[in-house]
């Protein structure tokens, strides 16, 4: 992994007013819920934070011509992809963890204390989920230029939910399962409730999706031919 690439991505994200406003909203809204309604909903969920930070991580470099400049330096393509992934995962996990800690303090101060084990589990799930979302973002972003990755998220997430709903409503377990797998790939969430039935499968499926997403992102980028010609 390349530290300079990681810092460059985050620095670039912090110069975008739209992304910064969205991040402030995503950080503050669940805390407002914890304060006003004693609700833990959304606390420590890194999905939207990672999406705001990571959307177009590779695609925007590709459409703006930055990718050609980057690869003119001694940087391997796998290192480039893994650096993008690590930057998105670490930053979104960090923001979500701070939010989770503040949320628990707010809930405790308002008479809704959470146990240490629940806090530890939520923190673990936050970090793992951030890694998962980061993996899917770099895969989708390697496939389409610009912010095309957002369209893929919408397509897979909404398509999966719709298929899952239809499968349940019409009692078609195979359709429901396909929909569930599509949704869980687009919106990865690590479930660390080990011991409950299905939890081992959920964890292996999560790890499998992450490894597959990263490997495919590198393979896709390795096969992408870049033009160095000028207009």
């Amino acid at each position, binding site marked *: 992994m390349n530290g300079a690439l990681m810092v460059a991505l985050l620095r670039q994200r912090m110069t975008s007013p739209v992304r910064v406003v969205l991040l402030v909203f995503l950080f503050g809204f669940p805390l407002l819920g914890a304060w006003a309604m*004693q609700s*833990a*909903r959304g606390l420590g969920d890194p999905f939207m934070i990672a999406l705001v930070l990571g959307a177009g991580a590779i695609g925007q470099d590709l459409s703006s011509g930055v990718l050609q400049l980057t690869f003119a330096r001694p940087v391997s393509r*796998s290192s480039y992809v893994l650096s993008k992934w690590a930057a998105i995962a670490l930053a979104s996990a960090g923001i979500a963890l701070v939010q989770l800690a503040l949320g628990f303090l707010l809930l405790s101060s308002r008479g809704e204390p959470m146990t240490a084990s629940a806090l530890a589990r939520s923190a673990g799930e936050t970090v793992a989920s951030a890694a998962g979302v980061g993996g899917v973002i770099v895969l989708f972003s390697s496939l389409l230029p610009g912010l095309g990755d957002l369209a893929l998220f919408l397509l897979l997430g909404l398509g999966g939910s719709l298929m*899952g709903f239809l499968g349940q409503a019409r009692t078609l377990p195979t359709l429901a399962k396909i929909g569930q797998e599509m949704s869980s790939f687009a919106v990865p969430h690590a479930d660390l409730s080990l011991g409950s039935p299905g939890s081992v499968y959920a964890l292996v499926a999560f790890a*499998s999706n992450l490894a597959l997403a990263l490997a495919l992102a590198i393979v896709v980028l390795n096969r992408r031919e870049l033009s160095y010609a000028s207009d």
Partner: protein
Amino acid sequence: MPATEGRGAGSSRRDPAVLLVIAGILLVARVALGLYQKPAAPSADLVEWHPIAGAEAEAGRNRPILYDFSADWCGPCQAMERDVFSDRRQAQTLSQLFVPVHVVDRQREQGRNPPEVTALQDRFGISAFPTLVVVSADGRQHESITGYPGAMALMARLQQARMAVLERAASPAH
């Protein structure tokens, strides 16, 4: 002209062999686990549910009834079952603090519900699933939670609803 390079050792475009092997192993493990776990899936629920008929007799001054109104086709109900009712600690908490009663709607599958289910749904005005209703032992105080807000939030709201119902049931005005 596009730059073309080889993908052998030392190339900046080398394919991630180790990552691909790990992804392949995890994929095989995932399919195998999916096939292996299929028959075991239905026995997830760890809550000690009580039948509708005996619930009021089981309830006490500090142990209200918790009606869980759900349906087999309801996605959020399944998520709640997976996150809350299948979690050993949360299931234990629910079984200790409440007299839990599972009320499953069969309208869609069988065209109608058993009379005791219809009576409970009418009594508490159930219009969506899941709806959780905490009812005092004398049946005169109740609090409803509609929808599934997530495991932690649900447990917090259930505790709040229990306290509210117990306080109102114990107040002199009552």
